[in-house]
């Protein structure tokens, strides 16, 4: 398979995998946060911070996907 196609597929895999990873991590954190907030509503701020932490994963995925797409567009 040509490099351009490989790069495009890799970009798709990167986005999908990091998206799933983020979702999974946020599911864990989100569940725990809601539980903690039921006991102490003032934890909302801290909970929000923890909740959005895993989004970095998908942001990194995006950066890598964009790099890969640049390869796909230009060729090797």
């Amino acid at each position, binding site marked *: 398979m040509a490099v351009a196609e490989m790069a495009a597929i890799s970009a798709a895999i990167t986005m999908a995998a990091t998206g799933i990873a983020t979702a999974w991590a946020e599911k864990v954190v989100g569940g725990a946060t809601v539980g903690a907030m039921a006991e102490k*509503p*003032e934890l*909302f*701020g*801290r909970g*929000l*911070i923890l909740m*959005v*932490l895993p*989004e*970095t994963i998908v*942001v*990194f995925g*995006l*950066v890598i996907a*964009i790099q890969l797409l*640049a390869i796909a567009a230009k060729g090797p």
Partner: protein
Amino acid sequence: MLRPERMTRTLIVGPREKLASTIETLHAMKLLHVIDHHGEDETFRIGKPLSKASELSESLVKVRSIMNILAVKEPPKETEQVKLEALRQKILTLELNISEEDGTRKKIEGLLSDLTRRVEELRPFATLGLPLDIYRGYDSIAALVGRIPRAEATIAGAIPDAEVFQAGNVVAVFIAKGRAEPASDTLSRIGFSQIDIPKEGGDPKAMLAQTQADEAKWRARLEEVQGRLEKLRERYAGFVVAAQEALEVEVEKAEAPLRFAVSDHSFVIDGWVPATQAKDVVSRLSLLDVHAEASPPPKGHDPEEPPVLLNNPRPARPFEFLIHLYSTPSYHELDPTVFLGIAFPFFFGFMIGDVGYGALFVLFGAIALFKLPKDSVFRRLLLVTGVGGLWALALGLFIFGEAFGMPFHAPPGHPEELSWATFGVNIPLEGLIHKTFDIDDMMYLSILFAALHLGAGFLIGFANEIRQSKKHAIAKLGWFLCLFGIFTLLTYALRWNEIALWVWEVPLGWFPRTIEPLGLSGVLGVTIPLLSLLLILGAFLGFAESVIAPIEVAGLLANIMSYTRLAGIGVGKAAIAGAFNGLIIEDLIFTGDIGYLILGIVLLVLAQLVVFLLAWISAGIQAIRLNYVEAFIKFYKGNGTRFRPFGVRTKQEV
């Protein structure tokens, strides 16, 4: 403005008979943050509540119970003015009235639930129609009465030598006592569930009719009572709410001595007063012949940290709630409200970067400013995103040249793209960056903002630490140098991009370009500016903080990359809006069919609404996250106590 309001420790001493009047004055002034006395002293014990406290709390409990019975939840539009002296009498009368009605209501409700149960019990027997005496009084016959799941199933054939009565799904089986058990097994296999036979005798149909008549009668009575309670609520809701408020204030005052130190003849109140108002408090109290003394907090770390009252210029104040949401600053550090107040709206605006949405955010912000109540969370949320909307408007107009996800003019080289010009709307501004085609520009700008934001964070951290610990201050400086090193390295590496090249050539023009130290050009095929490498080693100044600190260089790099979410959200939002616009406008609106045109316009409005809401949520959360997670951990400690002066009623914060 960058520091919380300065506080003075204030000690108030006076004879016990002045206690009540002192409390009254302090409560009215609302300036003293009381430090609770814990009573570890032999002479000065914890004070006892004023004599009127028990009577007041009793009234308060009564008012709350009345509120509960009347189900008063929302404060009515008009609350009455109440006089404290007349309050107790009025509450007692009202309680008498209401508790009588409430008692009646409860009794009727109990009775009704009994009657309902009785109806349920009699109903199957009424359907069968046999007199109740028939079911008992036999020596050798047993009666099994119950329900079966399906009315059409016939029992008669299933059990030999038994007399079976069936009406719908209710069945009565009369059978010899010796064979009752196997019969009952057979029955339960087809889902028969037995019911108890009422104790009394008589005609079940007549009994059911009688019970139902009783039930209807009592239900009417209940409605009457509820109607009366409803009238009482309408009439007294205003009074009850006002009375509760007044009593809560009075109880707080009467119970205040529990927080003070009191000896046999005197009292001592300890607390913090904003330094600017200390003189005022002292002079007001001296009018009462009570001695007060104010002194600034001692330097260094006091076990009793002063409470924190943020002191920001008016435009920055709406952002204070975002700081408290994270953590109240400590008294000794810089207040990051202004830092957040600049960075948050800018990041928000950069991610939105659209004239149309920006204008909507500004509009909502303006509505919130003038129409919503001051303490509403929504008002503050809409205000901060409104300020972000101003940036979105400006950037959308001059940098991105875009409104509602559609560029003003088709980007160069892509004439097929929809733009406002397609509709004949000619805006004499050309977008400098086209989000979906100039992703590399967006990425580099994100890195540039990361460097500025984090750099400012390290500098604030340096200013915070320099007065506390030189070691930590040096570490912050080291990190600042390291950040600068990484930034120059990235700029150098990305200088194929126009903006990066400009930054490398102009603002960083002075930066040494030596990339061939000792003739080591291109080791491993990579060239890097020497100074960048040396600056990154600045992280080793972090040794002063912790031995493993230098490992954090990778963490800092990850922090910088994390800012590319600014580009990610910006491009993503533009792409979603562009896709909606393209699909709906080209495939529905441009078809020329009137039906499709109307459908297209409706869908377009809905799609824009979705994009707007998504943008609001994602840009808002990401902008606040960059401040909370990436920047604040570089310098901000928090954990301060909020200034809560005696006399200010605290409401539940979000």
